[in-house]
């Protein structure tokens, strides 16, 4: 598995964090390490780049194919052909975020990690991904290159291959810079038995790390909302972590889900509703970074509904919960992992939270978009 060096990764992260949009890429030394942008005879993407003609060919030849090089993609056929054995998981997701560059990552990394993580939550080791771009006319090559570099970094770190894809360009105003769709295939771990039907009363609810990092990192850079913070997105691939967990605990890992859009509250509500069991969590036990908590207070957002990326909820049998925490806390994605609650016979269909001060309340579904409060 090709792993990008730590230094290169850090430098890449730094570049994504950079606000110096006007500095030519050639002067951003960090890019030289992994992915120098080739010379193109165009600075922006135009309708022609999605036409299937010469411009598309040039863009793909000297851009996408080079960066994401692997033996399957190199076939440059209409689709990828490969052998698969074992139970297989298949997942797809679209990425339409704004801003596309945010502290800790960009839409490219997110698009790879998102599908890698969805497959991981099925108990699968992700193998092959498709990657499709819908680009708004006028998007700069420099920005596109940054996105592509994000894709590459995430692909290398998670050890998956991009094997097929598509590029379309839409007229100015008919998109928002760039949308990405990825889908992926993975082989399910032979010991994995992940299904909500397997959840029963007494099971423990584990959260793998700090809540609400990604959503708040994005919010901190939204137009008109810029506030000074060191909060970075938690976007990361979870596949290696999940494989470790299933290797050790097998079928005792009953359910996995990454609480992306809708946050932790939505995941638990879906489960409570499907299983007709109670999901009781303790606010005091939910790991959160102080800055994120402060930002949520300031913005009037409930962290339970804020999006996460490199985070997962695991429902595990009570007898292995301590072991799960021990394994997770040794992993890069689980340093702050905690047991945050348990599944109960009481409160069927409901998510309850014990507040810090010892009161109890229902945690409902999010209605529509979480909107900032007046005061």
């Amino acid at each position, binding site marked *: 598995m090709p792993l990008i060096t730590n230094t290169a990764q850090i430098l890449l992260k730094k570049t994504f964090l950079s606000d110096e949009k006007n500095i030519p890429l050639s002067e951003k030394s960090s890019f030289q390490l992994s992915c120098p942008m080739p010379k193109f005879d165009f600075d922006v993407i135009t309708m022609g780049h999605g036409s299937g003609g010469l411009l598309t060919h040039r863009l793909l030849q000297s851009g996408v194919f080079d960066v994401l090089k692997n033996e399957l993609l190199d076939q440059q056929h209409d689709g990828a052909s490969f052998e698969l054995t074992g139970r297989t998981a298949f997942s797809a997701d679209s990425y339409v975020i704004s801003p596309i560059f945010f502290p800790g990552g960009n839409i490219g990394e997110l698009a790879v990690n998102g599908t890698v993580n969805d497959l991981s939550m099925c108990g699968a080791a992700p193998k092959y991904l498709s990657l499709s771009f819908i680009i708004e006319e006028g998007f700069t090559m420099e920005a596109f290159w940054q996105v592509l570099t994000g894709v590459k970094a995430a692909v290398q770190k998670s050890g998956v291959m991009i094997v097929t894809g598509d590029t379309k360009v839409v007229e100015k105003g008919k998109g928002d810079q760039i949308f990405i769709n990825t889908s992926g295939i993975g082989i399910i771990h032979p010991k994995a038995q992940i299904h909500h039907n397997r959840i029963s009363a007494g099971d423990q609810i584990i959260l793998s790390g700090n809540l609400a990092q990604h959503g708040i990192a994005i919010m901190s850079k939204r137009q*008109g909302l810029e506030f000074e913070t060191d909060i970075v997105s938690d976007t990361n691939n979870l596949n290696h972590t999940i494989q470790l967990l299933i290797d050790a605990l097998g079928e005792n890992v009953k359910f996995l889900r990454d609480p992306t859009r809708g946050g932790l509250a939505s995941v638990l509500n879906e489960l409570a509703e499907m299983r007709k069991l109670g999901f009781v969590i303790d606010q005091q036990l939910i790991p959160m970074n102080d800055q994120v908590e402060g930002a949520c207070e300031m913005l*009037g957002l409930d962290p339970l509904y804020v999006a996460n990326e490199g985070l997962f909820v695991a429902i595990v049998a009570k007898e292995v919960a301590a072991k799960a925490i021990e394994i997770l806390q040794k992993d890069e994605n689980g340093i702050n992992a905690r047991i945050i609650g*348990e599944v109960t016979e009481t*409160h069927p269909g409901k998510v309850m939270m014990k507040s810090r*001060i010892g009161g109890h309340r229902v945690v409902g579904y999010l209605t*529509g978009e979480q909107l900032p409060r*007046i005061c």
Partner: protein
Amino acid sequence: MKFLSEYRDPELVKEYVEELHRITTKPWTLMEICGGQTHSLVKNGILDMLPDKITMVHGPGCPVCVTSVSVIDEAVYLAEQPNVILCSFGDMLRVPGSKKSLLEAKAEGADIRILYSPLEAVELAKQNPGKEVVFFAVGFETTAPANALSVVQAAHQKVNNYSILASHVLVPPAMEAILSDKQNTIDAFLAAGHVCTIMGMEEYYPVAEKYQIPIVVTGFEPVDLLQGIVMAVRQLEKGEYKVENQYARSVQREGNRMAQETIHKVFEVSDRVWRGIGSIPQSGYEVNDAYRNYNARLKFTIDIPFAEENKDCISGDIMKGLKKPKQCPNFGTRCKPEHPLGAPMVSSEGACAAYYQYSSNTIEENIPF
């Protein structure tokens, strides 16, 4: 999280709850004015900790909830004008107007932006000199200084394509309206800490005196609220009616003078229609004559009929403290956050939404941990 975690200390909460149980001998009804306080009471599960003799009723202090249907219609009308960018605080977007909400107008193509500060709207106006930028200036005395400041700054910087649709409401007249209602049952008020941070406490002394009612200026964290309730109940048990300040870390008796000056520079006191309550004299702010060029109501001809409230929504009774959300026949059935009949089900600070989101009939069951 200094200044927050201390006020969420479970031990302190326990002490105040015990104190409250010790001192309460008679039934008392207290109204917390501010929607933020309602939200915190329900979200933290405080209502279940109070002695049975204490009843909390939820006041009118949710700006989203009291903004009348007609004003929402005005905002929708402006947003739908070609060349207008309407800017608003986030939680106004879902409030139903007589025909549609701002969120629906946005989906139909109106240029509506969610902002955190009206000063951003002035910036937006500078960046879009060919457009008219209107800020939907909603809120109590809390948001008035920033909204006023945006007008002062726009005038100072000669930004002529900026205006505000003012729908400000004031707390003391609403308290008086509630107290003068024949059905009123309120024994004491927890006044809104952040409104008093701006306006100070002076306005409340005559109210406490006239209606012989204790008023405790109170904050928003669990310890704040419980301390405020204890202070009010102590007064009630002794037969006193004073204005006290629980939220002294933020509120000074004279308030924030600079903020008040900014308000008075731009706004004048006017009558205002409150959703569910009706017109209350001298209960709002409107842009004054000196700044009339920044008053969206004068800049545009807003030609819409006056809209009636939805009769199925009992928000008036709820905001006057006459009814609890769960006493509404439509609560949780025809009226839910995803299809609200009235504003209290919309805002996270609305009493109905707070009850819907956070409270459960099964709460008394045995809970682990």
